[in-house]
């Protein structure tokens, strides 16, 4: 498969800004998989990935007229996606905190078990356990660590591009990714040694 250069994306995005729907369709086709993947990993839920990706593309369309080709399209796209997921995560955390206040202990336990239900593609038991360990680790990360980790590990982005997408510095991104990777490593180690409690792995 030929990978089209980012300049093509930038050209398409400028066309989208003029209201060209075919250009938007082409951009969507090229990037939908990575946006769904990024959103799903960021919030730790395959079920919410599409909903978030939809919002990201709608925002992308709306902001097309303000797009400046000085930023690479990929950077711009991930900036929109990161900001949206950060806001969504904040809202979700607030909602969850409010619900937790109103929940009985039994309801709380049931909700935790439901959250652990695999929503993603079919996996072997080992794969599901690994995924649960990684998700549990990601839940412990700060929102910015999550964003940097997801862009680096799942999207294969360079630190410089991640820094641009997060409106941060490469040095800060390096620290975020290192801390996140060490946290995930500790969870994976605990899972491998059987030390991880079943709830965390659920």
């Amino acid at each position, binding site marked *: 498969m030929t990978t089209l250069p980012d300049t093509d994306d930038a050209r398409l995005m400028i066309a989208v800004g003029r209201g060209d729907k075919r250009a938007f369709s082409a951009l969507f086709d090229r990037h939908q998989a990575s946006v769904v993947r990024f959103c799903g990993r960021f919030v730790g839920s395959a079920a919410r*990935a599409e909903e978030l990706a939809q919002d990201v*593309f709608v925002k992308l369309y709306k902001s097309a007229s303000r797009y400046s080709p000085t930023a690479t399209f990929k950077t711009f796209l991930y900036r929109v996606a990161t900001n949206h997921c950060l806001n969504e995560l904040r809202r979700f955390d607030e909602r969850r905190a409010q619900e937790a206040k109103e929940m009985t202990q039994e309801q709380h336990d049931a909700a935790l078990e439901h959250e652990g239900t695999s929503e993603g593609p079919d996996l072997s038991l080992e794969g599901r356990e690994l995924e649960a360990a990684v998700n549990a680790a990601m839940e412990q990360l700060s929102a910015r660590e999550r964003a940097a980790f997801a862009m680096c590990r799942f999207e294969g982005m360079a630190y410089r591009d991640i820094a641009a997408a997060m409106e941060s510095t490469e040095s800060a991104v390096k620290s975020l*990714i290192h801390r996140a990777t060490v946290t995930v490593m500790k969870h994976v180690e605990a899972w491998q040694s059987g030390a991880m409690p079943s709830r965390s792995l659920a």
Partner: protein
Amino acid sequence: MNEKNWQSELTAYIDGELPEAERKALEAALAADPKLQALEKKLRQTIALVKTLPAPEPSRALKQSVLAHLDEEKRPSWFSWPTLVPAMTLAAAAVLVLVLRGGREELPPLVVDEEVLVISQNMEVVEDLDLVGLASAEDLEVVEQLKDLEVTP
């Protein structure tokens, strides 16, 4: 740079993000430090494992959903249900008035039952006496005669 600092550089080293000079210095430190080597190995294993996780795939419905959403957003602001419902109600009422007014002349002559006609001509009385069960022309006649009787000395 001490060991701790090298540890914090390890991830960037594995990701190929260290500048040449730092990379060389870290490789020298690695060669001399088994603990640093062990950490590097564990980090590499973790990164490799994370890459094996399957990613959520977009469904075919996603594109349709996004395009539908954009079409919805592109409609003018007055084209929204809160605005549209009262507007449609007003329009329907206007159409109804026009139909009734325009159609009045063409309506066929009403064939009205005489009893109904009497009652309708005496609606005030009927409304007043409805509570006591007067509903027919005969009843009205009785009422009128009673009135006459009252007037008669």
